[in-house]
């Protein structure tokens, strides 16, 4: 008897799934935190293997240049978040915000979410992709409500309601895509396989595809956090545990965006459909400018960075909407830099909120004096996300602006306006958070700085130098996206 060949996709999915099942039964939280780290590391190793060992696409699963970028990013941030989470939850247990029973639940849900996201990223079947995104959303809803305070339950409820409306619209769009395909490809599973849809895209019914894309854009756009469907996002980020905020901003928004990109490729490959770029540009710019102005009135530190996530998802959707080799390249780069930077910021913010026992910006002052290391990493993260050189976010935003200026100066002006407004708001808040006389309690911080340094280091290096192989890879993906 020979063993079946090693399939990285199966290994990727099974690792998280088995880990979730095992973690549901581990009572001691120290062990479950360690096991969570080990499982996330295993997922990362398998994901890295996908870089050069890819199984051929079948009816259900696919690994191509596009999704491997997302999978590796997902696995990396998942791993660093599990490290951060291990140093974060001990404190939550001491202060009594979480009980051991809830922690068991939390760890199982963390791996379930990773499983759902990886399933969505590797799915070649649009129905399976939908189910996977629903699973990932459901597990984050559970984690957002885990503190069981009024605020947390309210946030989870709002997330559930808006998330389900989004998921319902996305399913309707998925059904319409199937209907558009069924005359050409024939009934059954084939008409839901993404590779088949792309191959036959030119002959699918264009009017059905148009309507389907509008539903998909609104549905998955809700999960991306696009204005005006963004209302769940700040609450979910602010009231859940901080590791969940980090993966929400860093990963789940990307996964929903990835689903949207897959459908965009199908619609764009059909010459008779309406151009989808303008729809994405409008929603992207609306999110960017709205969120940039909203940044000024935030009183809660996690809400502040949640709005910053809406702003950045707006920029990314805008860049993909502009399209073209350079636009897609810049969008992809911006997405990666945003994920790395934003999760690093949430790691620091999580520790800040723990030592100060508050999330109110007004009560946190002088961090660089009271906690130099923590304060300065927060400063570095915020400067990076605001788009200052030499960090990677600067480079991707610069690329977006220059490429758009050449094609549509008016749109580039709007984008630049949003970026400047957001820049001002972030620096204003940063100056009161990080400098001045320290206020509030100043207990020493017990933090693992490794994840923060790893993320910020990558963002720093990415801003100065990108390896040639990576540039070639991204150019290839940008070409695929059209």
């Amino acid at each position, binding site marked *: 008897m020979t063993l079946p060949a090693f399939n990285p996709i199966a290994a990727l999915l099974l690792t998280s799934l088995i880990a979730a099942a095992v973690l549901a039964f581990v009572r001691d939280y120290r062990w479950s935190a360690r096991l969570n780290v080990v499982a996330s590391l295993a997922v990362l190793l398998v994901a890295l293997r996908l870089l050069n060992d890819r199984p051929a696409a079948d009816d259900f699963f696919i690994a191509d240049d596009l999704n491997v970028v997302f999978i590796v990013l997902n696995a990396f941030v998942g791993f660093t978040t599990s490290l951060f989470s291990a140093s974060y939850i001990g404190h939550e247990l001491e202060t009594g915000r979480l009980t051991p029973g809830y922690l068991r639940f939390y760890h199982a849900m963390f791996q379930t979410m990773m499983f759902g996201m990886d399933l969505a990223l590797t799915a070649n079947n649009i129905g399976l992709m939908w189910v996977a995104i629903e699973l990932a959303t459901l597990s984050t809803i559970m984690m957002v409500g885990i503190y069981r305070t009024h605020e947390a*339950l309210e946030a989870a409820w709002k997330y559930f309601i808006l998330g*389900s409306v989004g998921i319902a619209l996305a399913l309707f769009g998925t059904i319409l895509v199937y209907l558009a395909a069924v005359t050409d490809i024939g009934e059954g599973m084939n008409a839901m396989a993404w590779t088949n849809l792309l191959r036959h895209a030119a002959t699918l019914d264009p009017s059905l595809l*148009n309507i389907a894309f509008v539903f998909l854009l609104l549905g998955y756009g809700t999960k991306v956090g696009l204005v005006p469907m963004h209302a769940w996002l700040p*609450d979910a980020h602010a009231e859940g545990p901080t590791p969940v905020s980090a993966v929400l901003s860093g990963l789940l928004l990307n996964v929903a965006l990835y689903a949207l990109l897959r459908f965009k490729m199908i619609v764009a490959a059909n010459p008779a459909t309406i151009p989808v770029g303008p729809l994405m540009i409008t929603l992207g710019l609306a999110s960017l400018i709205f969120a940039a102005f909203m940044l000024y009135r935030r009183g809660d530190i996690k809400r502040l960075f949640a709005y910053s996530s809406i702003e950045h998802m707006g920029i990314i959707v805008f860049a993909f909407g502009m399209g073209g080799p350079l636009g897609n390249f810049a969008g992809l780069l911006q997405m990666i830099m945003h994920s790395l930077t934003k999760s690093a910021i949430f790691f620091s913010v999580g520790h800040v909120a723990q030592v100060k026992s508050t999330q109110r910006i007004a009560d946190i002052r002088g961090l660089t004096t009271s906690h130099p290391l923590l304060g300065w990493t927060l400063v570095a993260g915020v400067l990076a996300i605001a788009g200052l050189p030499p960090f990677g976010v600067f480079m991707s935003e610069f690329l977006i602006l220059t490429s758009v200026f050449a094609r549509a100066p008016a749109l580039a002006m709007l984008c630049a306006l949003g970026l400047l407004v957001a820049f001002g708001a972030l620096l204003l808040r940063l100056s009161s958070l990080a400098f001045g006389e320290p206020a509030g309690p100043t207990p020493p911080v017990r933090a693992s700085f490794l994840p923060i340094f790893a993320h910020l280091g990558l963002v720093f290096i990415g801003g100065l130098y990108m390896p040639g192989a990576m540039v070639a890879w991204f150019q290839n993906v940008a070409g695929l996206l059209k």
Partner: protein
Amino acid sequence: MPTFAFDVAHMFAGALVLVSFTMLYQNRLPPLINTLALHSLLLALSVAWQAHIQDHPDLYVTAAIALGFKSVFIPMALHRMVVRMALHREIEVTVGTGLTMLLGIGLVALSMDLMLRVTAGAGALVREDVALALSVVLLGLLIMATRRNAVSQVIGFMSIENGLILAGTGARGMPLVVEISVAFSILVAFIVIGIFLFRIRERFDTVDLQALDRFRGERP
């Protein structure tokens, strides 16, 4: 026979839209829950009929889920919840009943016009089914938007879900419909169990907007 098959399918789908409309004017919780049970029962009949005429026996599973889980189990659980948690029976609405009905008529007209226009290439059965299904989905959204009370929002969500299952079964031979209906049922079950476990009664009872603002954590 094909015309008879079409007429019956059309009748069930049309009846679903009609029951969605009756949900719009219910102003007390227990009758609204009963309407949901009726809605799910009609869906079960419609799916069973589609299973029969399309010769897809696996759709009977979806029909069975609609019948057992959504038209019997969930309504019973919701009734129990209303009694156990002593919820207000009256439903607070944000928009008056008359205006809601007018909006509903507008939404149905919109979905008919839109879907019949874009599905010109598909068969008559599929076209009508998808158009009526979109009406059910939009009416469900309207219910969720005009009700403040959490139990009626769950009911609105379940009627949206019924509309989606209708669309999925109407689309000829669509795979994964069974799996999707199971996934939806798990979602709803989680939420209903969650409500029981977490006892978020205050959330269901209050329509006090100031309280909600405080919960949003935007304290100055």
